[in-house]
């Protein structure tokens, strides 16, 4: 199912972006070819027609022409604005993920990719996704800057250590497509790629429910929660020293300095690594920092666990606490 021809000149498009990007590219190509052709024609014409015929002759002393100058400033500016506007609209669309995405967590490290499905299953250098579904990649790096690039989808995004970066796409055509690391990251940068396998939705479901034995990341996160003694402050009761985490994910939190923030992956990651910043109001700044004590993957496990905690008094999907105080209204 590898999309490849004998001598590929143009990559196949397999995402909802590809058509737009290719059309814009062809437009740029056409405009460029037109103006380059025009310029080359005038040069060649002059080169032949006005070649020196007598050794001592000079050319006709023309100094300039304001109308021409105005024209060749205005016309390129017009085309430039069209190119800018069209490109900008595609880019804004690329940078604004829709709400209903299937989220894949990605960890990049020298020199491999770990991609995690929503159910926790992990793949290495492979990504299976359903066609026709909006997919969002939430990416972290363990070490240096990497970049996830799928030429067939016409998208890429740098993966920067110290933060999460995201990208989204919707695959339109089942098949296998290469992805590459495209930010130089050291010795085996060129080996740091893999395959995205796009499947029909039914096939994808079948693949998901297949091969057992994949670790449940929320359960792994629950274990960590115990091991790192998070539970000693985040008791799940409002009397705990730390905020109640049940149902916290996705909600808005009031900070000590008056601002309000949405509790998303990036906020939880920051709280774990550098809790002195963005403290929720009503709580003391006593949480220790776990910078250097947890890996990016472990942070993703903890996030999966926190996501799975149902709101107080409600039921929720995912794992329950293995042991410790029961969830529920205080």
């Amino acid at each position, binding site marked *: 199912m590898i999309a490849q*021809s004998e001598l590929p000149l*143009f*990559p196949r498009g397999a995402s909802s972006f590809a058509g737009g990007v290719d059309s*814009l*590219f062809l437009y740029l190509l056409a405009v460029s070819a037109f*103006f380059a052709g025009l*310029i*080359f024609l*005038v*040069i060649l014409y*002059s*080169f032949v027609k*006005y070649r020196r*015929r*007598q050794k*001592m*002759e*000079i*050319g*006709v*002393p*023309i*100094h*300039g*022409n*304001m109308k*021409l*100058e105005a024209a*060749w400033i205005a016309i*390129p500016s017009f085309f*430039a*604005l069209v*190119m*800018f506007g*069209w*490109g900008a609209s*595609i*880019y804004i669309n690329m*940078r604004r993920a829709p709400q209903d995405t299937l989220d894949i967590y990605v960890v990049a490290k020298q020199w491999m990719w770990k991609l995690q499905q929503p159910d926790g299953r992990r793949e290495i250098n492979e990504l299976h996704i359903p066609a026709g579904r909006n997919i969002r990649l939430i990416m972290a790096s363990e*070490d*240096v*800057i990497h*970049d996830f*690039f799928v*030429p067939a989808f*016409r*998208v*890429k*995004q740098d993966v*920067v250590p110290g*933060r999460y970066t995201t990208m989204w796409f919707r695959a339109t055509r089942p098949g296998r497509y*290469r992805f590459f690391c495209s*930010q*130089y990251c*050291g*010795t*085996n*940068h*060129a080996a740091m790629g893999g395959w995205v396998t796009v499947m029909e939705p039914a096939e994808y479901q079948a693949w998901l429910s297949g091969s057992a034995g994949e670790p449940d990341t929320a359960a792994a996160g629950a274990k960590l929660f115990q091991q790192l003694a998070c539970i000693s402050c985040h008791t799940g009761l409002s009397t705990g020293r730390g905020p109640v985490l049940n149902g916290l994910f996705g909600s808005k939190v009031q900070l000590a300095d008056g601002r309000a923030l949405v509790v998303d992956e990036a906020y939880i990651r920051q709280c774990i690594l550098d809790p002195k910043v963005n403290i929720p109001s009503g709580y003391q700044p006593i949480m220790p920092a776990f*910078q250097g004590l947890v890996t990016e993957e472990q942070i993703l496990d903890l996030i999966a666990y926190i996501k799975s905690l149902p709101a107080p008094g409600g039921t929720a999907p995912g794992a329950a606490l293995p042991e410790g105080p029961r969830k529920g209204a205080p």
Partner: protein
Amino acid sequence: MSSQAASPASTPPPLNYLNAHYGIRSWLLTTDHKRIALLYLASVTFFFILGGTFAGLIRIHLLTPRGYLVTPETYNKLFTMHGIVMIFFFLIPSIPAVLGNFLIPMMIGAKDLAFPKLNLLSWYIYNLGALFALFAIINGGVDTGWTFYTPFSSLYSNTSVAPAAIGIFITGFTSILTGLNFVVTIHTMRAPGMTWFRLPIFVWAHYATSVIFILGTPVIAITLLLVALERLFHFGFFNPALGGDPILFQHLFWFYSHPAVYIMILPAMGVVSEIIPTLSRKPLFGYPFVAAASMAIAVIGFFVWAHHMFVAGQSPYSALVFSLLSYMVAIPSAVKVFNWVATLYKGSISYDTPMLYALGFIGLFVVGGLTGLFLACLGVDVHVHDTYFVIAHFHYIMVGGAVMAYMGGLHFWWPKITGRMYPESVARVAAVILFVGFNLTFFPQFILGYLGMPRRYHNYPPEFQVFNVMSTAGASILAVGYILPMIYFIWSMRYGAVAPRNPWPGTGLEWQTPSPPPTENFEKTPVVTWEPYDFYNRPDLGLTGPEPPSPPGSGPALSPAGDD
């Protein structure tokens, strides 16, 4: 052979800057801007050969998808050092330090630059920085890419990053001092009558370049210093684990390195702006627009740096601003191209080698510049960023543009510099070989880039092989195009025809001096009364037109169509 002016060629003048003093000390301790230019010529040529060798090894390695010539570590060092050597030790100094140093005092009617000893010091600083870079190369090389992105360069790389960074830091002062020298010279040492709008565009171009030297180079200096400090003393500005920000490095780095590309192209445009009017024997069309465009490129060029960072994770709104500004900076370059082409119209066009290089420049610069529009376009850049498309784009500008103009300039002013002519027929053939070889090397890379082949890859998927083989084949032809001039330039210094004072002829003050010129350039300071490239009103050049030229200063007898 090239066209002669009225005065016939004779033996070289008895005393000129080349034979005024003998001995190695007279060269190593010279303050004559012309000798310093030749010192630079030697240095930059050495690094061009070194950088070119690295490129050759890269292209040979990429003949096969699995690449067996060198190990991955070595490959990564090769492309890094190719970039560092070519950009910092060849391209950035090339035209300003060789042709700029040689010509600017003569073009404005001065005896030397404002600060000749500073000029010599600049060359020594260049060599000191070069020593550090050579040390880094010999000490195992550097593998960070010439862009030194953190935290790879500051924390993870196990190669000679600090020596390389320090070498570039030191060599940066060459740029700063040269820029300072040019700006002060152009402001304060123009001969009487040499007003700003009588200056050759070559001078305008170097003035604009010097503005970038002065404002931009210190920023790369402090940036690389911070990387070195981070490696040596564990400062944490770019280290996320210490609360630092890797993206801060990118902003600081590109704040200089984008204007740096205008440092590389503006002097080249200045050379082309001299060759085309001179070898068409008519004024440069739209002189004020070309002069203004040079300054506009220098200024706007400072505001586009983050177009290298569209997928780095910055806010989409800032990306919009930088994309728009990047389109704006393209307009003055387009204006220049149109003005050069208009200059050809109704000219008397010579087929001499400098003209071939100048026209080759326009062709290749147009391709490079238009593909820059693809990269400025946000929707397309996301796909082609960090692929071979970018590599093709910047080589079209830097090699197809800047290096061709440098070669054209060397040919154009060779008679003035050495007192000898290069062999015209061989030179024309070499120019064509260069043009063909260049296109074969780099055009396939546009296709590879859109197909998705990333940069800095020592291996690649097998479907990319055909274009890689094409590219390497082109590189071998390109190499011939460079080797030929090296051989015949050296040959010409002994066996070339003796050059007259003004072979083309040119209208600039540099052509009023003997070939080669005496150390002080002018016996007495010239007084300028004519406009630049005004062949119509220069009977002293010995040319005849379709109409007899009117007495100097009386203006054209006829009013040609389209004149303003």
